[in-house]
């Protein structure tokens, strides 16, 4: 059974820690007791040992990322072991949960009172009585409905503290799935309203949410909307695909990504990030392409698109998207982006929208549907396929004019797509 | 300082009151109606009566575990005293003190005391208050022969001496410190000799002779009021009962006990009153009847008095 590695609490007031170095990469064999990851607090660097012998199956927090104490940062298990169950469970609440010893609660039992008692032999004290927990933690747990038997404490001797309960409690509220689970103890939060489905707000869903909130709360954004005549682009793509087998066809998205690279070449400021008192304008053009996964979104990054052709970009996007859905992306494949493209074109409904920037990037391009529309070409009215494009940019970094300039370059590329194929 | 007729009659009346009170308390104790310890004053009445006859109401006294006689002689209300020793809410101390802890500051009574010898420095402190307040009040401290072996006795006498305090020390030497005979528990045969060790006079008197007690104490009080410093008056006396009710005092020689009973202070005083023609037998019997009625009324009052409220348990720990 897989073991988890969490951000340890190394001091009375430690709230967060930063992963500074992974000694092992995903897939590497590790031995119990071997130092696998180094974390840093405000004061010290601390080496975390592997909790088990096996393979480092998962890395959830990458180098230089700062996360709250208790956050799951890695998983060690046996090669090929299916840890998806573990990963679909509620990371935030179970970050502190011990995999060994007390069996981790099924997600639907954590908030219910029945499970632990049922697991105890008749006449035996309930596990709650054996859990070391502070009085304040017990009281808080009772108030917010957290079962401390499923927490492993971060206090001395593994004692459950207020902070442990608070973390778990946040998850209880964030994951009403438990409340909807079958069973008499699983009362819906609002019984008078029939609930069709309760979706846990945790894991990737929660990570997305928190990222969006952080982005939205930080960046003053502006969105420019433009309409592109994509007749030339579609013709080019069609001609490129005419001779290609089914699995190697070039996507319109790949062409748009390439166009973005060319636009950035003309307006480099689009490709930047704000770091404290400096705006870093990047040399590399690494474009993230948002990929929908079941109840979520992953943004794998195509690196150096300015140096890649459309065919290669297309191939890479396809590979990354596939592996995103399989959840086999490597850490470096989802980090390091400098710009993001997100597309809703496949749904055939949305022309324009206002995407939210993927921090610390400065801008994001939303791609709408391709739809026939009346356009004027060379003074004549024609019906042409058009595409809605929406550029959201961080006005702290980019003013309206350069954004418009970038879009002009982008439209120009789309209007003269032969340049994309060069 | 010769005693006059009315004075001696008052002393006699006081002694009868003490005796009747103690007899009644004894009865109540044996009947099981009285909690705790009871140290009866019977037999020593001439000391309380003789000493207190020399005092003014604003003088102060510090008493002992055997203190009923002192309180009565200083003007204590026997109704409130009986209520107190019965533990009733109407008692001098709301039932919180009992027999060994009756105090009445309004009468100048700084309290009986459950710890042998503890009243002596308290009496000396009261004497300092008398001196400090620029009046001519005196403080009288009662203690027994047993207490004269306590460190409190020696430290307090020394302090009273060096500060020339208006203190009168009344040693009620009933010849036994609980069960330990005085001739065995100390070397000088008179406690009063110890006063010399602290540089002030010690007088020995017959403690069963109220007149003698009065005269010796009056001298001591006058000296104190005049700023002459402390005096000790040792009153040789005898308790009729054991140390407390229940102690049969088997450690005492029955013959000696009989001799002392024959010298009962009430009998001696009655003889004097009769011999001087100050009171005939009928008058003395009338006093006794009158006192008995007063005591019976006090017993009835006390028995009819309410128990303390349970909420009183927590009050009076601190003065607000």
């Amino acid at each position, binding site marked *: 059974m897989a073991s988890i590695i969490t951000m340890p*609490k190394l*001091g*009375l*007031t*430690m709230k967060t820690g930063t992963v500074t170095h992974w000694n092992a990469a995903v897939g590497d064999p590790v031995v119990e007791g071997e130092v696998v990851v180094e974390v840093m607090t*405000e*004061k010290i660097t601390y080496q975390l040992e592997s909790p088990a012998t096996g393979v480092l199956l998962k890395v959830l927090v990458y180098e230089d990322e700062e996360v709250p104490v208790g956050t799951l940062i890695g998983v060690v298990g046996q090669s090929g072991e299916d840890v998806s169950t573990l990963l679909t469970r509620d990371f935030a609440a179970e970050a502190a949960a011990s995999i060994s010893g007390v069996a981790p609660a099924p997600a639907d039992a954590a908030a219910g009172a029945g499970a632990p008692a049922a697991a105890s032999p008749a006449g035996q004290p309930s596990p709650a009585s054996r859990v070391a927990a*502070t*009085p*304040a*933690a*017990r*009281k808080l747990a009772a108030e917010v409905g957290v079962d401390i038997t499923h927490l492993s404490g*971060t*206090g*001395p001797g593994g*004692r459950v*503290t*207020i902070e442990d309960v608070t973390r778990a409690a946040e998850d209880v509220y964030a994951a009403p799935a438990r409340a909807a689970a079958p069973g008499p103890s699983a009362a819906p939060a609002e019984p008078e309203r029939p609930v069709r489905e309760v979706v846990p707000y945790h894991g990737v869903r929660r990570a997305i949410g928190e990222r969006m909130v952080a982005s939205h709360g930080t960046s003053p954004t502006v969105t420019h909307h433009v309409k592109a005549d994509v007749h030339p682009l579609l013709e080019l793509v069609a001609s490129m695909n005419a001779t290609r087998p089914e699995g190697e066809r070039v996507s319109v998205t790949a062409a748009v990504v390439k166009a973005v690279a060319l636009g950035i070449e003309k307006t480099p400021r689009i490709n930047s990030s704000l770091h404290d008192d400096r705006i870093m304008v990047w040399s590399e053009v690494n474009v993230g392409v948002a990929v929908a996964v079941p109840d979520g979104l992953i943004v794998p990054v195509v690196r150096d698109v300015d140096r890649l052709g459309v065919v290669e970009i297309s191939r890479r996007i396809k590979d990354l998207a596939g592996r995103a859905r399989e959840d086999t992306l490597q850490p470096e494949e989802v980090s390091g982006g400098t710009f993001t493209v997100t597309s809703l074109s496949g749904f055939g409904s949305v022309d324009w929208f206002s995407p939210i920037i993927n921090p610390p990037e400065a801008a994001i391009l939303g791609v709408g549907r391709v739809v026939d529309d009346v356009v004027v070409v060379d003074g004549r009215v024609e019906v042409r396929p058009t595409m809605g494009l929406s550029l959201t940019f961080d006005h702290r970094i980019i003013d309206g004019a350069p954004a418009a300039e970038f879009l002009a370059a982008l439209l120009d590329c789309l209007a003269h797509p032969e340049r994309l194929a060069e | 300082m010769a005693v006059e007729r009315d004075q001696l009659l008052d002393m006699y009346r006081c002694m009868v009151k003490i005796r009747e009170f103690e007899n009644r308390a004894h009865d109540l104790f044996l009947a099981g109606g009285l909690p705790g310890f009871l140290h009866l004053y019977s037999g020593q009445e001439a000391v309380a009566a003789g000493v207190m006859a020399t005092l003014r109401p604003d003088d*102060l006294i*510090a008493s002992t575990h055997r203190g009923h006689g002192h309180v009565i002689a200083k003007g204590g209300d026997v109704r409130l005293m009986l209520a107190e020793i019965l533990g009733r809410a109407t*008692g*001098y*101390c*709301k*039932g*919180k*003190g009992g027999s060994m*802890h009756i*105090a*009445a*500051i309004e009468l100048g009574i*700084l*309290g009986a005391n459950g*710890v042998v010898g*503890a009243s*002596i*420095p*308290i*009496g*000396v*402190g*009261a004497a*300092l*208050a*008398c001196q*400090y307040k620029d009046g001519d009040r005196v*403080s009288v401290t009662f203690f027994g022969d047993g207490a004269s072996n306590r*460190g*409190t006795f020696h*430290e*307090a006498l*020394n*302090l009273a001496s*060096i*500060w020339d305090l208006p203190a009168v020390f009344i040693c009620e030497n009933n010849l036994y410190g609980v069960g330990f005979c005085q001739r065995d528990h100390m070397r000088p045969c008179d406690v009063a000799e110890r006063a010399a060790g602290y540089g002030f006079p010690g007088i020995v008197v017959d403690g069963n002779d109220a007149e003698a007690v009065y005269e010796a104490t009056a001298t001591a009080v006058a000296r104190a009021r005049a700023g002459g410093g402390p005096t000790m008056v040792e009153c040789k006396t005898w308790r009729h009962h054991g140390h407390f009710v229940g102690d049969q005092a088997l450690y005492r020689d029955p013959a000696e006990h009989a001799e002392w009973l024959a010298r009962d202070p009430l009998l001696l005083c009655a003889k004097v009153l009769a011999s001087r023609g100050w009171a005939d037998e009928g008058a003395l019997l009338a006093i006794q009847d009158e006192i008995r009625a007063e005591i019976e009324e006090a017993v009835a009052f006390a028995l009819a008095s309410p128990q303390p409220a349970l909420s009183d348990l927590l009050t*009076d*720990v*601190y*003065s607000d």
Partner: protein
Amino acid sequence: MAVRNFGQAIADGLILEMERDPDVYIVGEDVATFPAFGVTRACYERFGATRVRDTPVSETAIMGHAVGAAAAGLRPVAEIMFMDFLGIILDELANQAAKMHYMFGGTMKVPLVVRTVSGAGIGAAAQHSQSLEAWVTHTPGLKMIAPSTPADAKGLIAAAVRDDNPVVFMEHKLLYATEGEVPDGEYVLPIGKADIKRAGSDVTIVSWSSMVQKSLAAADLLAADGVAAEVLDLRTLVPLDKDAILESLGRTHRLVIVHEAVKTSGFGAEVAAIVADEGFDLLDAPIKRVTAPDTPVPFSPVLEAAFVPDAAKIRAAVLSLG
């Protein structure tokens, strides 16, 4: 405000009270002509031998006569030169003074102050160095004051003199030389009010007397550790400001109690028991006590230093809470 040392502040307070109330007098061994720690010399110079009274070496008489004088209307301030001598006066203090108001049914007041010198730190060894506040706090009827600063000492000695109950006023000998701003003129603090000497959010350090200073030093160390320690100076042990302790704990959820007295049955145990009872649900860590070990006070300076709690020990106890 003026800068005064601890001993001067007490003398200032006493002089003001003696001016205000002619029944207040000072009494004890060498209080007039040759005060052991010098505190009452100024009082003697101001008021003379009637109101600042030297006694023989007779602690029993000092305490015992004070009880009688108080009962008879005076307000004695008795000095017991070393707290270790509490044993000599225990009957007068605990059996007489403490009980008279209660056992006489509230009819008698015993307004007296026992000033006494506590604490180790000068090589005074086992019989002149103890902190015996728990002997006092275990006796209903007595109040127990243990200030830590000159200002508190002035305000609380005045309050002690004005109080109608027997009050033990503990003066740690190492505090005498400490200085601080002291309000000018009449200054009276309430008895029974604790004081937050340093605010903090992570842990409450409860202490009194000289250990407040050690706790403040520990709080400085802890700040460097990233721990914000609150230092709560009880100032008065009886009556105890329970509300202040629980209020602080409600914010910090961690409690460390520091006293110089030995551990077993020390007043820290009482604080811990109260918190376990009335503040159980506030606790997010075990209650820690930092105290002297259960030994007599040693003479050797090396051993004495090890005996007395210091900032490092307090810091370690706080950090052990995790």
